[in-house]
């Protein structure tokens, strides 16, 4: 195992060199607390403002609509709990989908225990919601719709603009978890018409533990973290200046070359899908053929189980991911793969390869070379194969 290739960019990304360089001074030179009025503090404040402008620009939002958080999960929790509790006098019904990230799903489940009612929309075999289902789910007391922009497992992209339009028409707050879409799609919050949108730095070559919530100007939601006057009194806690500066830089870089990035990802993605599907029998592509993230490959291999596939790939230096529950010791395979109608057996044999900026065509070649014998070896061991 000399070669190491990383195909798990949807799990997390390495930070770009330029991002780290931009962060370094803020760890121990310009380290002040932005709430302080002395020069150290003002340096921090200036850096914070610049980073906020950068992130705002990538979403075509106003700077004062961007609120930094400790990650994508916090942004999701804040958006959903904050909107739900702030609108409780108007109703208690929330609509989401069955394929959301756990940060959304478990938050909704928590709210059910707190007296809210939640509708979990089905998706079709590609992972798309049906707009009519959504329309029918809306009730008098619906206060919030939260539907992810792009799915983290199968990459399917929802019709966000249509959903936002419908929500606005019905006067319902609309949140979208754009953690996976951000940096891989042009996102214009005003054109889309969303009210709340979550993003996370570590998915776009920025630091871990930093995210942001876009809150449309004028919208009021409850804080999730109360305390100091940071983030216009809406999210307390001494700002993670190096992290936020890194996020700003990562955002800027991502949007500088969005088109090139998307093209490169799509080329690698398409080749992976094509070659794997052609050379290995008994496979199935999960997710939508075209409405999918530029870097997402998700394929099920019949008769084998995901963890043993991942371990075998890891032994030859390939880092990938799977929707098999056996990686986590829990009973059911991924709720997303179940929701698109896969049988348990097949869902257990899924492989997610997500490509990113540091991948090369040689990496793709390497996977295409190494994967078939590994799948074959595991199938030879499987009591289900040739049955």
């Amino acid at each position, binding site marked *: 195992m000399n070669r190491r290739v990383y195909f798990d960019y949807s799990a997390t990304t390495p930070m770009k060199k330029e991002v780290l360089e931009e962060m370094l001074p803020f760890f121990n030179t310009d380290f002040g607390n932005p709430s302080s009025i002395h020069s150290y503090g003002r340096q921090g404040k200036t850096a914070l403002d610049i980073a906020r402008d950068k992130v705002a620009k990538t979403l075509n939002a106003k700077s004062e609509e961007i609120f930094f958080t400790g990650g994508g999960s916090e942004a999701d929790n804040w958006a959903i709990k904050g909107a739900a509790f702030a609108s409780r006098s108007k109703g208690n019904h929330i609509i989401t989908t069955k394929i959301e990230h756990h940060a959304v799903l478990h938050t909704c489940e928590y709210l059910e225990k707190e007296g809210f009612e939640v509708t979990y929309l089905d998706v079709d075999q590609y992972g798309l919601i049906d707009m009519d289902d959504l329309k029918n789910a809306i009730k008098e007391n619906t206060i919030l719709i939260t539907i992810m922009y792009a799915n983290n497992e199968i990459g399917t992209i929802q019709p966000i603009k249509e959903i936002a339009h419908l929500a606005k028409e019905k006067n319902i707050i609309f949140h979208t978890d754009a953690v996976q879409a951000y940096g891989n799609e042009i996102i214009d919050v005003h054109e889309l018409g969303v009210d709340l949108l979550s993003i996370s730095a570590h998915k776009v070559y920025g630091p871990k533990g930093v995210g942001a919530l876009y809150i449309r100007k004028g919208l009021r939601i409850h804080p999730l973290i109360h305390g100091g006057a940071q983030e216009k009194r809406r999210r307390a806690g001494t700002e993670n200046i190096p992290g936020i500066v890194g996020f700003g830089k990562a955002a800027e870089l991502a949007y500088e070359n969005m088109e090139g990035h998307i093209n490169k990802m799509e080329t690698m993605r398409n080749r992976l899908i094509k070659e794997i599907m052609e050379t290995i029998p008994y496979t199935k592509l999960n997710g939508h053929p075209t409405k999918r993230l530029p870097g997402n490959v998700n394929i099920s291999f019949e008769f084998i189980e995901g963890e043993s596939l991942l371990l075998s790939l890891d032994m030859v230096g390939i880092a990938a991911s799977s929707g*098999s529950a056996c990686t*986590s010791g829990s009973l059911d395979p991924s709720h997303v793969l179940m929701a698109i109608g896969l049988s*348990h057996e097949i869902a257990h044999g899924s492989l997610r390869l997500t490509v990113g900026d540091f991948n090369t065509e040689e990496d793709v070649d390497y996977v295409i070379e190494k994967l078939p014998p590994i799948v074959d070896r595991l199938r030879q061991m499987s*009591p289900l194969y040739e049955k």
Partner: protein
Amino acid sequence: MYSEKVMDHFMNPRNVGEIEKAQAVGEVGNAKCGDIMKMYLQIENDVIVDVKFKTFGCGSAIATSSMATEMIKGKTVKEALQLTNKAVAEALDGLPPVKMHCSVLAEQAVKAAIYNYAKENNVHYEELEGFVPDEDHDHHDHEEEE
């Protein structure tokens, strides 16, 4: 995550395959849970002279299958029935807590094979009392936390 021994048995599993005219065959687990283990024993004069397995499952499931086959090969049937999942796990230098249940599968697969053998040959092993071969092993979905 896994010990070197586990990885060795996972990457180079011993005794993979089938035995065509096996005296004893047992299968446990189910594909829904992501794991099926099938054991083939060739038994001569109450001694397990050969053993093979096929497993659909995680790395730990494959490694414990492999180790279990090694541990019962050459043993008498009675000795094989003493095999515990703990012993298999220990022989592999331990398993992560969430993966201990996979070793239970290995123990069960051996027992299931011998159970079928006993039934066909009308032998009685007191070690098998209380053993229900099709019992859902329900080994998953435990929380790590108290």
